[in-house]
């Protein structure tokens, strides 16, 4: 251990972006050693991405600013290294799988770095073949990005980094755009590359539980531009630090804490699949017995009914096949399934953007066939994942007012209704701000406000919490919960397992264009066959209950969830 060679060193390093009034990184002291696997966590705005950009040279080459203190990569001072020299040492996989896919095919994308280095063609072909094999994309060399899944695109990006000799691999939020199952595979692949190819791996991510699916040597916690912890996972999990910094702790840890179990090092807390929970069995069981059984209020007044719905661009290639489901008034429902399962197609059919090939859509018992997109929008609001796809005005007031204006509402009535909605969404203080000055989460709220103003009875939200950290996730979801309590029916399309566990009354699972299941989230996420068919991930609370040898692990999960909801709702 004493001879470990440092590959990245930061000494009292600070950085301030040119456009910012305050430094983003303050007095960072950090050393990463050769062959280590390090996870950097922190809420958004903590500076973790900026720290990553300092390592790969995007700061200051791409995002300019002033730095102080010293930093070294492979022993060379960072100040003397350009973006290109650094790219020889640090290979980066960015967050956005589409944006960083610059080739027309998989092979070209992997080859990109070598092409730029003017490597001779025969050697490019050999090295691309080897890298593609290493990331399992060797069967897809000629495929275009449009025909690949998010996970495949990410594997291609990793291949494009492995093809060069960079000894340090940097992953910037590798899980952000992946469904839970694909995310699990990504973590396994990163782990394999780390072990087999002698790379130093740095992962920047706030989804701690998912990264801990495989071992990491150390976790670095960042907050407000500082490193506030640098310790092994098991120590971090036993501390109270995660709660204080606003990073979601793994659910099984939360469950152990609820039950009052003592978290000890020898329990192997950092790995759910190796967790020693035997000693906790009694306490977990006792806690379960004190929790009331979950009661289902069966209030069933159907609002939206879908009967035998099928859709495809071509009659022999159906994207949705004979889907039937109903959404009841006042429910908070989630629709889950892997990419391409038909989730967004379904919502587009409901909103009338597409016409069904066969089947019926009913709203309050009446067929919606002849209703226009505009008419449906007054009852069913649709909020897209990317707020930038919805915002077409520069001022918040104008943006929210737009839908009313085209419907002929003017003057005082317009102002009153817009202001009311802005108050509901907590945007009233910003009403005269330009939208460009808002954060991502606030923009998302503006898009929700612009839909709410039309007073729909149902809202469909596509990935309402994508790209947001735990704090913003909580704020957004509590906001939706409040709307729901006031009578709004909420449908959430998501692949966030936490979201469905914590907020959905009911979960509808789609797989390959068919409805696979329709049940409570607790029952769905403890059913191995559904979890597998829909590329979901079993909840770690279920695993905990099984490892502790509890007789009714599923019941434990559902009681945990209802307790957790009560605690959060406070």
């Amino acid at each position, binding site marked *: 251990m004493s001879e470990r060679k440092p590959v990245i060193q930061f000494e009292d390093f600070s950085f301030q972006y040119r456009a910012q009034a305050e430094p983003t990184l303050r007095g960072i002291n950090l050393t990463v050693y050769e062959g280590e696997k390090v996870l950097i966590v922190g809420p958004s705005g903590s500076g973790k991405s900026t720290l990553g950009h300092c390592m*790969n*040279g995007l700061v200051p*080459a*791409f995002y300019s600013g002033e730095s102080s203190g010293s930093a070294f990569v492979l022993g060379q001072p960072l100040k003397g290294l350009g*973006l*290109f020299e650094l*790219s020889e040492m640090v290979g980066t996989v*960015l967050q*956005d799988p*589409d*944006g*960083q*896919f*610059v*080739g*027309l*095919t998989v*092979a*070209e994308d992997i*080859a*990109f*770095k*070598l*092409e*730029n*280095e*003017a*490597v*001779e*063609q025969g050697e*490019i*072909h050999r090295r*691309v073949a080897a890298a593609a094999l290493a990331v399992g994309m060797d069967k897809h060399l*000629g495929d275009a*990005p449009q025909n690949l899944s998010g996970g495949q695109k990410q594997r291609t990006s990793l291949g*494009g*980094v492995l093809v060069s000799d960079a000894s340090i691999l940097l992953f910037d939020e590798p899980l952000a755009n992946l469904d839970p199952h694909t995310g699990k595979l990504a973590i396994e692949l990163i782990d394999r590359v780390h072990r087999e190819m002698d790379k130093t791996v740095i992962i920047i991510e706030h989804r701690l539980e998912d990264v801990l699916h495989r071992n990491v040597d150390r976790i670095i916690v960042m907050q407000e531009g500082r490193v506030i912890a640098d310790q092994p996972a098991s120590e971090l999990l036993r501390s109270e630090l995660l709660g204080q910094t606003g990073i979601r702790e793994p659910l099984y840890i939360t469950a152990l804490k609820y039950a009052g179990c003592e978290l000890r090092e020898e329990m192997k807390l950092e790995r759910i699949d190796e967790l020693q929970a035997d000693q906790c069995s009694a306490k977990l069981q006792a806690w379960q017995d004190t929790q009331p059984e979950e009661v289902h209020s069966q209030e069933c007044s159907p609002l939206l009914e879908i009967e035998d719905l099928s859709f495809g*661009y071509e009659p022999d290639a159906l994207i949705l096949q004979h889907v039937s489901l109903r959404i009841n008034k006042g429910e908070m429902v989630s629709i889950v399934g892997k990419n391409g399962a038909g989730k967004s197609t379904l919502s*587009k059919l409901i*909103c009338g*953007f597409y016409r069904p090939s066969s089947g019926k859509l009913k709203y309050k018992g009446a067929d919606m066939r002849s209703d226009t*997109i*505009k008419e449906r*929008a007054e009852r069913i*609001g*649709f909020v*897209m994942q990317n707020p*930038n*796809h*919805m*915002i*077409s*005005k520069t001022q918040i007031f104008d943006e929210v007012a*737009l*839908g009313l204006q*085209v*419907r002929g509402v003017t003057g005082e009535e317009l102002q009153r209704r817009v202001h009311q909605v802005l108050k509901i969404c907590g945007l009233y203080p910003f009403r005269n701000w330009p939208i460009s000055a808002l954060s991502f989460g606030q923009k998302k709220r503006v898009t929700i406000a*612009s*839909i709410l103003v*039309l007073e729909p009875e149902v809202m469909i939200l596509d990935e309402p919490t994508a790209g947001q950290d735990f704090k913003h996730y909580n704020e957004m979801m509590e906001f939706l919960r409040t709307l729901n309590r006031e009578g709004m029916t909420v449908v959430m399309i998501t692949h966030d397992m936490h979201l469905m566990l914590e907020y959905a009354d009911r979960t509808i699972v789609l797989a390959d264009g068919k409805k696979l299941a329709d049940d409570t989230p607790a029952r769905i996420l403890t059913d191995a066959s559904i979890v597998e068919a829909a590329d979901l991930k079993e909840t770690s609370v279920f695993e905990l209950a099984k490892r502790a040898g509890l007789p009714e692990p599923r019941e434990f999960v559902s009681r945990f969830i209802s307790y957790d909801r009560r605690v959060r709702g406070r």
Partner: protein
Amino acid sequence: MKVQMLSYKRLDSPIHRLTGSTKLIFFALWSVVSMITYDTRSLLVMFLFSLIMFALSKVKYQDYSFVLYLILFFFLLNHIAIFLFSPHEGNKIYGTTHELFHIVGWYSVTLEQLFYQFNIMLKYLTVVPIALLFILTTDPSEFAASLNRIGVSYKISYAVALAMRYIPDIQRDYQNISFSAQARGLDTSRKEKLFKRLKNVVAILLPLTLSSVERIEVVSAAMELRGFGRHKRRTWYNAKPFTARDYAALAVIVIVVAVSIALAVSNGSRFYNPFV
């Protein structure tokens, strides 16, 4: 999303095996020659030659049928327009008048006009197969490499490849944006009045521009992180080496150019005149 029209398909034929650069040069020179010359003899030879190449390429009819119909439709329109606006163009060119029959007013059908329009038809027929072949048999992945080879800077060449890469993504963004605009009541279909429709289209363009700018930032960061622009020169995964076949094709196009120049010089004009 929709049916793929007029796109490259991986096939093995003598035409497919040519490099993109060869096809680009061939197509460019071939078009220039057939645009300039009205010499019926050389056009006929070129037309036959283009048909032979088309047969060699093994391209399937359904891959281009739609576009072919479209071209034929405009071709017909063009001919009607020529006759309507200039029914005696042929007589002016060839200097004689052999009237076949009179229609009305100054409209009459003459042999010269028929021959002139026949030549125009031949010009179309010589260019269309080669243009279709160029599009159907050139791998877009290889196209950037080809541009680079014939002297275009690699940054510009790669920009062309990037455009092809991101067009489907931007189309998808556009569709999403326009859906959400429609839901809020911004109609961009023909049901709306023209002025309002234009205003509504502008409302879609702003988010589309913003999301594209956002994308450009990610793309350029990703490219620089992988060393794009570091060196004066780059190699290409998909570049094809020049073979004897390419030199032969280039020789053919040089001969075509030379012969048409020679014919034009010996005739003293771009037109072949059978009437004197």
